[in-house]
């Protein structure tokens, strides 16, 4: 699973069988500091995410398992909307040793 930020909505009238009625969003994968990682991708939404939301996604075969019915041609699915991440700042140091955390 990985983090992403929703950048927009994708509208496709003609879709493969099994994708009818599925909401497609454009997602930029990010790290825990919201910095982009890799290229923007299309993902099926299962949690009613919206533009600007920090979400987490599941990829590969397990993406299809997030949908019902699950035998669908999908390789990225948004499975949660992130409320918060307790990650140390990028330049955080250990207060006792001075070493980077």
């Amino acid at each position, binding site marked *: *699973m*990985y*983090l992403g930020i929703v950048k927009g909505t994708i509208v496709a009238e003609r879709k493969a069988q099994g994708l009818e009625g599925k909401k497609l969003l454009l997602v930029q*994968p990010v*790290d*825990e500091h919201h910095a982009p*990682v*890799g290229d923007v991708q299309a993902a099926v939404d*299962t*949690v*009613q995410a919206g533009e600007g939301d920090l979400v*987490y996604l*599941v*990829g*590969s*075969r*397990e*993406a299809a*398992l*997030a949908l019902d019915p*699950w035998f669908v041609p999908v390789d990225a*699915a948004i*499975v*949660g*909307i*992130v*409320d*918060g*991440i*307790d*990650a*140390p700042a990028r330049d955080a140091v250990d207060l006792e040793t001075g070493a980077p*955390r």
Partner: protein
Amino acid sequence: MRCCRVVGPMWAAVKHPAFAGRPLFVVQPVDEHGQDTGASFVAIDNVQAGVGDKVIVLTEGNGVRQILQMGDVVPIRSMIVGIVDHVDVAP
């Protein structure tokens, strides 16, 4: 499986039902010397890992389904399955 460092916990109120009650962590893959390598990702926790722990993370869905025993339709791909005590590397 990947050797990772636990970066921190993560909260999500709205999520797929399969994730209900399962702790979520951001983990950062590390190399044999403990240096960060590659992009961080999200994993559920099965071994009560804590922030800063070096852990083993399963990154494939079938093994996760075997552990969770919740059936064949579980959209979870990565799970912390062990806490590393130490790593010996040949010089």
